[in-house]
């Protein structure tokens, strides 16, 4: 039985290609996600994120390559593989002429072993009890998004796929969504696959991120290493002029911060020495803090490098 295969990964993609007659939309993408892991797929619009997600849920068939969901081959064993997945693809589309509850009933009837209790629990989980018996055509986008999540977790899937889940959400809705995703991953050990083109939105919830551009997965990194790597310190002092002299005496390279009294120095600096020197010169240290790399930094750098490559190749 395919389900008895090792379920080390909730999702495994092996050398996935998607070619349309004249162009390759997804090229040699391989990645894997463990249970309980939140994975963010990042890239500009048109990079191939949605195509990848559509392949994961069976809407689009890969030209070549394999997709395994909880160890089941998606192509050969579709019904078994897909039952481990809950998903929202692009916008959460529902039947507008039905109520939220009736829409969930549609999903219940299509799945095995979903009870009325499950519906109730899912609706509670996304906080939609009050409006669940209203027609979906009267819902706001945020409510549809929540109904989408309720629909996706109805059957307690092992892998949750969310395509641009923060699209059209207000800050409050975004915060709610983040807390929902974190609860699902950490409390229920569900693997979550999120795509986004807005980096800061997924930064807080992802364990790992992959960057995709022109259909190619450029790299996969864990968030902690991105945040810490090449980290810098910001130091804010009471006497900027004096501090600058000290840096020059020490021969350190420094950046001027956003005020005259703040400086940015490399994370590998000998901070003990600096503190001693500053104390000797009676310069007060008002702040001393790490400056974290944001996804934006990493993203922009990669994209820039890639552009340069493109240009070089072009010539």
């Amino acid at each position: 039985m395919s389900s008895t295969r090792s379920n080390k990964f909730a999702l495994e993609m092996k050398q996935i290609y998607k070619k349309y007659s004249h162009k390759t939309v997804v090229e040699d993408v391989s990645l894997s996600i463990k249970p309980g892991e939140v994975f963010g797929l990042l890239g500009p619009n048109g990079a191939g994120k949605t195509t990848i997600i559509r392949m994961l849920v069976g809407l689009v068939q890969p030209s070549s390559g394999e997709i395994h969901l909880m160890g089941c081959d998606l192509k050969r064993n579709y019904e078994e593989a897909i039952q481990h997945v809950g998903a929202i693809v692009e916008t959460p589309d529902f039947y507008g002429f039905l109520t939220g509850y009736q829409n969930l009933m549609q999903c219940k009837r299509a799945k095995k072993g979903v009870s009325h209790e499950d519906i109730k629990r899912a609706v509670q989980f996304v906080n939609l009890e009050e409006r669940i018996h209203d027609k979906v055509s009267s819902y706001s986008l945020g409510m549809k998004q929540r109904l989408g999540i309720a629909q996706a977790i109805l059957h307690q899937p092992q892998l949750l796929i969310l395509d641009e889940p923060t699209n059209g959400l207000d800050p409050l809705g975004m915060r709610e969504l983040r807390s929902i995703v974190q609860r699902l991953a950490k409390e229920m050990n569900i693997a979550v696959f999120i795509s986004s083109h807005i980096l800061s939105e997924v930064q807080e919830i992802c364990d790992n991120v992959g960057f995709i551009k022109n259909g190619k997965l450029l790299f996969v990194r864990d968030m902690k290493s991105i945040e810490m790597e090449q980290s810098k310190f910001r130091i804010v002092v009471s006497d900027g002029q004096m501090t600058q002299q000290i840096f020059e005496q020490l021969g350190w390279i420094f950046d001027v911060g956003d005020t005259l009294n703040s400086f940015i120095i490399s994370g590998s600096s000998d901070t003990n020495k600096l503190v001693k020197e500053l104390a000797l010169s009676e310069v007060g240290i008002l702040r001393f803090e790490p400056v974290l790399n944001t996804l934006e930094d990493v993203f922009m750098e990669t994209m820039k490098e890639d552009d340069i490559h493109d240009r070089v190749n072009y010539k």
Partner: protein
Amino acid sequence: MIGLITNEMVKIFRQLKMWGVLGICFILILLSGMSSGDQTAAQSIITLTYGLSSFLFLPLLVSLVFSDSISNEVSQGTIKLLIVQPISRIRIWISKWIAGIIISWSILFLLAIGLYLFVGIKNGFGSWSSVATIIGHGKSIGMLTIQMYGLQLLSLISIVTFILALSTFIDNASLAFGISMAIVISTSILLVLAQKHHWQALKFLFAAQWMLPGHLVNEDLTSSSLPFGLTILGVWMVLFLLLSLIRFSRRDFS
């Protein structure tokens, strides 16, 4: 599978247009009831199904209800909700097909029962065992009714299959509706011309054979026998089924 068929029925009955179709049925019952002269109820429902089949009224109703059955899901994006469920695409298509057959049959029964009651109250119900005088050759009214409605139900399966096939291949709901209308209407015009000019080729058209009950009263416009008509319908239906299932299970929804 029953759950899936229920889903499709719920979707159809919750849409406004289903009420439009019921309204049309109601008007049809009223009009044909009023113009039933002194026919008994039993006689009048034979007239009804004969009339329905020769004017291709049922294909119009069916395409009104189902021509957007798949194309609407694609254009509204709700197809994603269906595909993501642990159901094969073939089962999704088949459940739509079965729901279509059930609903189109129900429409036919609704028309027949409605008319039977209306005329029955107006003119009396009459006997099923008396010989049919208006059309048919000496059969009892009961027997003729069973045969006619049996054939009508068969041709409804073919109608639903064709319209669902159109909806499978054409993503634009109103285009699918337009094309099915055009085919239905042009076939019925062609048939009238064919009868005048003795065109034989038309009898191979699926839409021409939707008038199956006509065979029972020897007024078949296509001048072909009943087994021939059934064969033509069967062949076309298998073709539509296969093409639709292949298309629906292989295509990308992007």
